[in-house]
């Protein structure tokens, strides 16, 4: 069974601070997606990484896929209150291209003004 473990589960920081969220597995994934979810809404895709060692930047967010495609990280620079939400990593099935995603349990981020 493929599992994704996210850490930390909860993070409360002041505006302007930096943070990193980790997503780890013992399994290889064909791709890794990061979603952000706000209360009462569905998750919204932030980025997809598919190549081992790949780094993608989205404004103040930096995403990295591990060389072995078993782990990923999300780094936020100078967090803003608008970054508050639930961050979810999701791995694409490595055995078949079915689109079925395995989700981590999420990291709840609170950015205080």
């Amino acid at each position: 069974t493929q599992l994704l473990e996210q850490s930390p589960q909860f993070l409360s920081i002041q505006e302007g601070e930096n943070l990193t969220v980790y997503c780890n597995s013992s399994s290889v994934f064909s791709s890794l997606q990061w979603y952000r979810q706000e209360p009462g809404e569905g998750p919204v895709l932030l980025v997809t990484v598919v190549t081992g060692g790949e780094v993608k930047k989205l404004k103040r967010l930096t995403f990295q896929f591990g060389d072995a495609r078993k782990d990923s990280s999300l780094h936020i620079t100078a967090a803003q209150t608008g970054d508050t939400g639930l961050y979810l990593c999701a791995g694409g099935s490595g055995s078949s291209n079915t689109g079925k995603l395995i989700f981590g349990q999420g990291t709840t981020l609170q950015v205080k003004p």
Partner: protein
Amino acid sequence: GAGVSQSPSNKVTEKGKDVELRCDPISGHTALYWYRQSLGQGLEFLIYFQGNSAPDKSGLPSDRFSAERTGGSVSTLTIQRTQQEDSAVYLCASSLDSGSYNEQFFGPGTRLTVL
């Protein structure tokens, strides 16, 4: 250009009753997924449909859960004889095609409360 819609947004039911949750995917999206989310947690895969292929039901937690997709569009998730542990947010997502690189677009979810 409507997104994925789900109804009802909230459903409160009594233990033992049956419920139906509806999902309208984005027009033209061939793949449709159902997930379940407990409060503040990640998403648990339930079932997915791709075109006319047999659905992948591997995530359904029990035989009380079933889903269908009519005409390759609207989907209904049915939970029979609901139990309190079924209380959760049920999320539907659609994508242009199956494939692990395809972006899944999520609806706002149906919050189910079983009393």
